[in-house]
């Protein structure tokens, strides 16, 4: 389904002294199967935006369309569409409440009204997708699991609903470097296997390019950049407005460019940056060897 955000405005505590505009007239379209990264500082409205897409909030002005229905509408058609959007909040392990891992992951599918056989199948599938040993973990009490395992269980709980659109709000928050890498690699796999639309809210500029193809930068409640991830993450201006630094790879390439090297500055991943630098160095050397005059 096509997700369309039209002039979305959302104001907290409207009419009271604590009034605050979280989103101001945000508009964007997300096609089915796209992988979009959403960046921005705290207070930029990222979480508010994705909660609107999931139909959890009602806009103060503007609309969010899930296909041909309005996201937050109370109609049956809208409810059905909302069920196809899965949203994992930050620190999703904080939502745990069930006695066993199985019941915890089954919560979502059961709320969808599926029969027990289907629920079981989905729980197994979801636990496998997050890399947990299904047989070992299903009967355990969630609170006895480690933080990293519990996070995976929580994500499995959202995956088990087999959403068409998966929204992850900072899924790697608080994980150690290996945990971050592994999780984002898994997210990439999920998307490739299911073809779902992916919205990834994240600060992790180093890992983002491995997972998303498009990046949207929010600041002060509005969109300050929206385009291919390589382009956006090498755009210093937009990132600076959002209180973010360019990824270290881009910073390095820019420093070299300023020093006169002819390098592209949109090589975001370390291996790409290294290759780019090596190539430029080779060119420099061959110019030097030729004594100049090389095209």
């Amino acid at each position, binding site marked *: 389904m096509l997700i369309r955000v039209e002039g979305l405005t959302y104001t907290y505590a409207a009419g009271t002294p604590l009034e605050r505009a979280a989103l101001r007239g945000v508009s964007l379209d997300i096609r089915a199967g796209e992988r979009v990264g959403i960046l921005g500082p705290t207070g930029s409205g990222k979480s508010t935006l994705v909660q609107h897409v999931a139909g959890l909030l009602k806009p103060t002005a503007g609309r969010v369309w899930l296909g041909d229905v309005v996201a937050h509408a109370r109609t049956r058609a809208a409810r059905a569409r909302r069920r196809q959007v899965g949203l994992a909040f930050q620190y999703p392990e904080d939502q745990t409440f069930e006695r066993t891992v199985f019941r915890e992951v089954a919560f979502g599918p059961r709320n969808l009204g599926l029969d027990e056989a289907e629920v079981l199948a989905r729980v197994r599938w979801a636990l496998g997708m997050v890399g947990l040993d299904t047989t070992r973990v299903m009967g355990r009490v969630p609170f006895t699991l480690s933080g990293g395992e519990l996070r995976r269980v929580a994500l499995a709980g959202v995956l088990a609903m087999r959403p068409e659109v998966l929204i992850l709000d900072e899924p790697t928050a608080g994980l150690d470097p290996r945990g971050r890498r592994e999780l984002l690699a898994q997210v990439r796999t999920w998307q490739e296997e299911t073809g779902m639309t992916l919205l990834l809210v994240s600060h992790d500029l180093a890992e983002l390019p491995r997972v998303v193809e498009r990046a949207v930068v929010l600041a002060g409640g509005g969109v300050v950049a929206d385009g291919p991830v390589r382009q956006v993450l090498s755009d210093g201006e937009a990132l600076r407005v959002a209180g973010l*630094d360019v990824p270290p790879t881009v910073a390095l390439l820019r420093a070299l460019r300023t020093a006169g090297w002819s390098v592209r500055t949109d090589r975001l991943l370390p291996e790409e940056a*290294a290759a780019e630098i090596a190539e430029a160095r080779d060119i420099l050397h061959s110019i030097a060897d030729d004594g100049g005059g090389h095209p």
Partner: protein
Amino acid sequence: MPTNGHRRGAASTSSHATQANSQCRGATTASHHAVPPFIEIRDLEHVYPLEDGGEVAALRGVDLTIQRGEFVALVGANGSGKTTLARHLNGLLLPTAGSVRVEGLLTSEPDNLWAVRERVGMVFQNPDNQLVASTVEEDVAFGPENQALPVDEIRRRVDWALDVVGLLDYRTHPPHMLSGGQKQLVAIAGALATQPACIVFDEPTSMLDPLGRRRVRGTIRRLNAREAATVLLITQSMEEAALADRVLVLHAGRVVMDGPPAEVLGGDEQGKRLRALGLDLPVAVEIADRLRGLGLALPPGLLTVEALAGALC
């Protein structure tokens, strides 16, 4: 740690210089060789009992000394024991074997506990779960209030601490209206207000956004450089670890690496080891390694993008 604000703004180039000049509690002015280590840990073991009757050793035989004024980073994967180790430094946890001494005081002696906590302050990971009062200044005053200090001294310390972290204008703000980074700065001010000689930071930036992280990191650096605080920074971020004078790597309850950042984080051998331990290298180091693999000759120990760019040009 100075007892009044006059050191504010006095930049110092080395922590040793300020060490000799500062009015840190108990600081000796004798020559550095005679100064005993500020923190001395011997054979520290910490074993947790498990529900099913077994036990797990979070720390196994850790030996460690930290001198006054040092800026030490402690890195390790989740479960390596770093938080457990940190909690031993101010007596929140007690050793099941071995000893921890802070300025000579044994933490396992009940009578020493509060003296230890006056020397070692702590800032935790979750900004919200450290703030107890309804306004910023009342929260920062919590520590001095516990020390039963006179009102004017409390007032002086609160103003000084808030000034150091740059939140003097937010004195009367309620905590829930602050950003995560600001809350963490209030927590730091709260730890500062008891004027400990040493502050332990337990993953202080892992729940913050990039802007908050920058602010907190800058404050921590300043505390060590200008206010002569001994700093122990527990972190998952190698970029943060690279700021320290010394990096300790913890794995399965033991210290497996200990040295200056250039050595621990900067080499190729160490890189493989760190990755095997579940940790990452600073991006600059990763790129430098790849470049060396592609045939470029680069000096070792390039930890930051600036250093790498400088070496290439």
